[in-house]
């Protein structure tokens, strides 16, 4: 039977060395996906990924047993915001995310694998770039809401817990993000 998040955390606190590994395996892909979408940069996302789970490890005794997923994403979100703030202090143009294929290596590779037509590949890459730019143009909170709700498939309740706000606020942020994106997203064929 699948162990609950709470029982894994309890086991980890008690010194079960496998429990933490199971947590990381369970949520690793989702957290990393969230961080990559938030930062637009895999290297930075991996750093934040490590910091997130480090924090989970250090603060595991403070987890009260509510929604672990929301708690985990709240840690990841706070660290991401901290990272943004620090980078803004260090260089004013931190948002100069490199939209070269370097950042989308895996995605570009998968597009190229699935299409033999070079022009289709080029068009898709350009569209991906536009979508990324549109998402990155959103304010931090709207971006976090959209990514958590749309890409990470968290319910609005979970998003609200992760962002430490009410469901109403989440819905407002989501609606604003959608309205903004409607102006910026490229047309694609279904």
């Amino acid at each position: 039977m699948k162990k609950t998040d709470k029982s894994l955390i309890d086991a980890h606190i008690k010194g079960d060395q496998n429990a933490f590994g199971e947590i990381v395996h369970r949520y690793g892909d989702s957290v990393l996906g969230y961080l990559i979408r938030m930062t637009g940069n895999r290297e930075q996302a991996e750093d934040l990924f490590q910091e997130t789970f480090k924090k989970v490890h250090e603060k595991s005794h403070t987890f009260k047993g509510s929604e672990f997923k929301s708690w985990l994403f709240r840690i990841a979100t706070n660290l991401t915001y901290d990272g943004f703030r620090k980078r803004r202090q260090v260089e004013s143009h931190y948002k100069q995310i490199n939209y070269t294929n370097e950042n989308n290596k895996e995605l570009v590779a998968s597009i190229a694998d699935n299409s033999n037509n070079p022009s289709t590949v080029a068009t898709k890459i350009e569209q991906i770039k536009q979508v990324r730019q549109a998402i990155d143009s959103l304010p931090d909170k709207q971006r976090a809401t959209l990514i958590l709700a749309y890409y990470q498939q968290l319910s609005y309740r979970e998003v609200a817990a992760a962002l430490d706000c009410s469901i109403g606020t989440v819905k407002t942020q989501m609606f604003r993000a959608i309205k903004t994106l409607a102006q910026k997203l490229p047309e694609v064929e279904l």
Partner: protein
Amino acid sequence: MNKKEQHLTEQELIEFQFKLAPDDRVQEITQHLESCNQCREQLEKLKRKFASLDLLHEEVRASDDLISQVVQQARKPVKAKIFSMTKSAWLSAAAVVLIGALLLISLPDTDIQKKETQEIDTVKELKSDTIERGFAEETTKEPATLSGSRDISEKSYAFAPPAKDESPQPVLGFASESDAIEKPSGFKEDIIEQPPFAPASSIELVTLPRRENVQLTIYNSADLTLVREKRNLVLKRGWNWLQFMWANTLIDPTSLSLEPLEQKGQIDIQALVFPARLRQIGRWLIRSEFSGQVPFEITYLTSGLSWRAFYMGTLSEDEKSMQMKGYVRVSNNSGEDYENAQTRLIVGQVHMLDEIASLARRQYPYGSPIPIIKKNESNVLFFDKEEDRLGKVLTLGDEPIVGWALKAPARKEIIKEGLSEYFLYSIEGTETIENQWSKRLLSFEADDIEVESLYKYDESRYGNQTIKFVKFANDEDHNLGETPIPDGNVKIYGVADQQGYLSYVGGTDIKYIPVNEEVELNLGQARLVEVKPTLMNFKTDNYIFDSNDNITGWDEIRSWKIEVINTREIPVTIEITRDFGTNFWTMQSETPYERHDVTRIRFNLNIEPRVKREIEYTVTTYHGRRQDQYNQ
């Protein structure tokens, strides 16, 4: 039309598609969509619009390496919480500490000294004990060292670190290499010999106190300012990192220097590191045997600060004396505010290898040198002549009764002193020079400067116009002469009427005036004093012919009348220069004149108020073989 029959709005469709609507409304919209083709089409359109979002729906996988790193990290034990306290417990603890501190203060000194001696003994025992057990291998924080406890007694038992309450300064960051591991009070360990490669984490960086003081030495021959600032840093015993950032400023990172002002024997500045991939950041690695607050001096060069001199003179009614005020305007475009800065201004030429502004903007501080800046060829410094001509200084003319109305209650003196090849002007006290601001300061003020008001007419230099000059000397006789007068723009005003209103007479740029040198200020064309030369007669004479009857020599004889009109209410002195264009000439005139040089003569005339005077002269010039006869 009831709600069911109304078409859905874009907002409703978005809310439906993204599940933002409440459940009952979702149900209504679903029912409506079943029966409304138009709304279904709208919804499809909306879905198409947002279909591109799915392009980023790619599956992300955390690599096994990454996961194993994270899991490995979690194997380290979590730092145990020592104890936790509620708010009230904290307050009680604070009260106990306060009472304890008061009791300590009330103890006689001898008791404290005794206590200290006891502590020293304990520490000595502890230290030897610890080394034997091999503890000294780690670098650790030293929470309350011996020197620390002395600091506390000297500083009236101020337990908080001195820097803590001061407001943070964004430019500098300070990092300690130590980890926060608690050790017994007085515990002192050896510092590890191997310096750390980098700060353990940027999270450890803490802000520094503000500058204690700052001194600016602004050179104007080049875009160069030397900044010396004093800051009190709190060092830990061991390896320390001091971070310096110069983003958005024009600081030359290659010029950075750091020196402790106290505890020099115990503090060693080992290196200045420019970390790879981090732009515009430098970190000093400091090895310190001392723990506590140390004043440091940081010096560097920056560009973007400049100063210019300008002057205002007011002529007396009779134009025989002048009141003069000299100002300097200090401008800061360096990207950094300098609060309460001691400011010194340098006149002199500086040899520059690199342009500071370019160095500041470099991605990496060191690299190939930038091309050498073009040096000013003259000995006199101040570039930027155009800037003043284009009107920056002219804006000062908008102020009421220019110059004289600018009376500050406590005016700063500008102290001047010679400095080798340079001349140094120090502004008294301190000045706050904020970024993007300029500040004007009075440099000197001299009354009753004896001046000579002079008009000049010289066609070869000024064309057919009379030019007004004011002449004086930078010497003691003219109530000046304390210092050289730097280049700058000068504006002269005259008393326009009996009420004492001023009128603008003219302005010009002046070059550097050394002490005891004379200066003539060209104030432009005079309109109330006119000089009109007229050629009255011209003839040739004394022809010489060769054997073929060709002309080989002759004389030209010209008679001139010069009309000089003074429409002013005061007598004027006019200097009229006539150029004959040849070395071979003779002159007849009843008006006295002086030979100015080989081709020119000069009349010096004093003309009474509202008088027109005529002078006449005849000049004979010799040409061809007549020149030989002239020489005989």
